[in-house]
């Protein structure tokens, strides 16, 4: 009941969905359309609230126990309540003007700037860490520099028609990525198969 039944449910649904792909019958289409594709977003909505609830719980604990940097957890909680209040007062929800305002002027600057820090980190790493320390690292660096040179009008080397960087992208890069994609694909399928067959069950938690 605690463990066996969920695994049986996964098995039945998983096998059904695999067969459904191969047997396009009306009845199987009906189940596919009106249950398999219709219900999960609703379950997802509840599942996703878990993360938010635990964020609130962690923040509150931090403030209560006066852990390191507990003051910042207050900032998190205040921000959370403010935007939720703004969104729930207005019937437009996430599209309410104050919510859009906070999104445009507070969420966007933080997340886009946070990622732009990486420009500095990559420059610093280029200077201090990217070394041709082995044959493989050298191949990688040479290929990277050629690709980076595509911005410069350096004659035949970077000419758009016979560009060397384009050759790298569409020949060796394609081959490399295809080998990786096939591996990733087999990995995804094998994990999914193990889940459906009940071999892999760590996601159900321990007990």
């Amino acid at each position, binding site marked *: 009941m605690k463990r066996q039944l969920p695994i049986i449910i996964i098995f039945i649904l998983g096998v059904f969905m*695999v067969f459904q*792909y*191969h*047997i*396009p*019958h*009306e009845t199987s*289409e009906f189940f596919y359309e009106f249950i398999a594709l219709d219900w999960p977003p609703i379950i997802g909505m509840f599942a996703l609230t878990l993360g938010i609830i635990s964020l609130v719980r962690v923040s509150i604990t931090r403030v209560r126990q006066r852990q390191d940097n507990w003051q910042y957890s207050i900032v998190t909680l205040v921000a959370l309540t403010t935007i939720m209040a703004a969104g729930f007062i207005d019937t437009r929800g996430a599209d309410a003007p104050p919510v859009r305002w906070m999104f445009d002027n507070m969420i966007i600057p933080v997340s886009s700037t*946070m*990622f732009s*820090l*990486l420009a500095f*980190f*990559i420059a*610093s*790493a280029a200077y*201090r*860490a*990217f*070394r041709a*320390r082995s044959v*493989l*690292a050298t191949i*990688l*660096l040479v290929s*990277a520099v050629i690709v980076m040179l595509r911005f410069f009008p350096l004659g035949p080397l970077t000419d758009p028609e016979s560009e060397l960087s384009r050759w790298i992208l569409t020949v060796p890069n394609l081959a490399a990525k295809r080998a*990786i994609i*096939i*591996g*990733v694909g*087999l*990995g995804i*399928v*094998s*994990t999914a*198969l*193990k889940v459906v*067959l009940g*071999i*892999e069950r*760590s*996601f159900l938690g321990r007990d």
Partner: protein
Amino acid sequence: MFVVGVVWDLSADDIRGRNNVLMYEVLRTPKMEGPFPVDEVPADDPSYRIFASNAYGEAGWRFTSGEWDTVGQVPSGATSLENRGGKIRDSRDFIPDYVDFQYRVIAVTAEGGRASSPTTPPVHSRGHLFHLDRILHIGFPAVLYTVLILGFIGAAQRGRKLYIRPLAGIDAVDEAIGRATEMNRPILYVLGLGAADEIATIASFSILSRVAKKVAEHRTELLVPCYDAVVMSVAQETVKQAYLDAGRPDDYNEDIVYFVTQDQFPYVAAVNGTMLRRQTATNFYLGVFYAESLILAETGSLAGSIQISGTDRVTQIPFFVVACDYTLIGEELYAASAYLGREPKLLGTLKAQDWFKVCLLAVLGLGVVGAAFNVDWILAIFRMSL
């Protein structure tokens, strides 16, 4: 559901030749117009037919042979289109049973030129229970793969020895631990930003177990800063067990594995601080990594540590390769953990994957022969409409 796969060869001017094909249009005859309400269908016109059933409602449709319906357009480079339809009588995508359809494909060029293919032989529409092409091309390989996985996991569980080749990064582990002992400096092990149920993290746990055991034997200091609370508790168990196995349970203390914070950049800042202050001799980065891979590897290389990294996030591999001494690329991370941990599930999967790849290579070889020498029956295998 009605599905007709229309498959064609690329136009001589698509991608090659003058390279000016913009798209392909797929046409179908007889042209179907409708749906009309049943009482509006003229009784004396034979081109109209009424379809009715209890389950799907009723409607009238007009069929004009010799005229064409456009069933779809696809961009240049494509060589197939699925003409899909349903059995609901009054829906625009209705396709009745027992009608002969013919198709033709038109290549449209940038200059507005239209070149038509010959018309196909008629296709008879009829309900099928099985999608045969899918069963052959997808169902069959999937079943084969399942059998391989089950077989090898079973074999591994029964204790059969399954060979996995040694990996360079793994051989370096012992050496790197030895070096730290000599220099009397600590070892840093970073499990990455993944949750405890991600495969890369699980693989990292079994490598950590091996590293911790060696460390305990050498009596070197180990540091494991964690990003996720669940990962931390699993890592604690792993390290504790490893110290026990090494026969030095007294050397274990709760501060070896510790929680830092669950914010990406502050976490990295803290780990960087540890590297520089403690002058770690060896750094392991094994697990799921995102943008922080670069910052960690750079700082470690600055501090002069030996670095062993591995992740299945392909985008981060270049940074590890150029800044670390050894890198486990993608699946190598899983292989490394199977190699060290001998966990049947992982080992069996890896083996099955290898053998399935052998099958793929064999099929590929067959295809290449077929394509090179124009062997029709082989090429027919590769012409599929899924």
